[in-house]
């Protein structure tokens, strides 16, 4: 089942958070396969959070929107919190005009902020001394 998915963004694991993304070339079958694979991984790995980077998506129609909403609901039932990050401005405007508000889906400006919301921190700046050390 997973093999049918288009070669795209793999699902990475960072602690108890799964990180993945969607590409623009998303047909219906790929969207469904994506949902199935992600659901299996959440369940198998006991993930508490899922970050989906959608900054590559140039179009979100009602089908993709529904996929995201269903995925969020399923993940929540499995105990994971989903954050969708990086929606492009034209996509947000079009969704709102379509009348789709992605009810229940949490959003973040970019993957970094999404990860922060899921409990991940940016690494602190290295110390002066350490930086000097690596420079030499």
């Amino acid at each position: 089942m997973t093999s049918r998915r288009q070669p795209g963004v793999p699902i990475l694991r960072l602690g108890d958070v799964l990180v993945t993304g969607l590409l623009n070339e998303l047909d219906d079958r790929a969207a469904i396969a994506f949902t199935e694979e992600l659901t299996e991984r959440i369940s198998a790995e006991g993930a508490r959070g899922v970050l989906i980077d959608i900054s590559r998506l140039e179009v979100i129609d009602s089908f993709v929107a529904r996929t995201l909403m269903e995925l969020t609901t399923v993940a929540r039932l499995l105990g994971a919190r989903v954050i969708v990050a990086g929606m492009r401005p034209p996509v947000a405007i079009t969704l709102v005009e379509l009348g789709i508000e992605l009810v229940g889906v949490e959003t973040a400006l970019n993957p970094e902020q999404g990860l922060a919301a899921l409990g991940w921190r940016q690494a602190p700046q290295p110390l002066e001394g350490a930086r000097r050390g690596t420079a030499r």
Partner: protein
Amino acid sequence: MALPGESILASRGAKRPARSEGRRPPAPASYPVRTEEDLLTVRHAVRAATIEAGFGLVDQTRVVTAASELARNAYVHGGGGTVTVEYPRDPRGRRGLRLAVKDEGPGIADLDAALTDGFTTGSGLGHGLGGARRLMDEFSVRTGPGEGTVVVVTRWTVR
């Protein structure tokens, strides 16, 4: 009596015949919607057409999304159909893009209901039509039970 040559040159520079805005619009093109892959092809073709017609990024996204909704309707509810892309001009010379989405399916029995928003139900029909209507400037449907459905939508470049 003689004015500085500059002003004449300036006025010459401003001389620009109206309605000469370049090339002839491309010929209309049709794309079949028979398989799921065709939906992607339609999206690509419509994206290219919006760029050709001179739309900005947000309008491109509106038109491609509307095309996606209508093509999916034709595929899911109409058992397949065609999407025709045209490049109209209105009397004021504005450029636009017109999509005619046609299927030979069972037609829409209750058009008003189909146009009513039902986002939360998640049913494809109605959502696609109503959404496409909001995303475009002009919208018309010709349908009836057993007659198939033709949806024609247009968006113009300048609001």
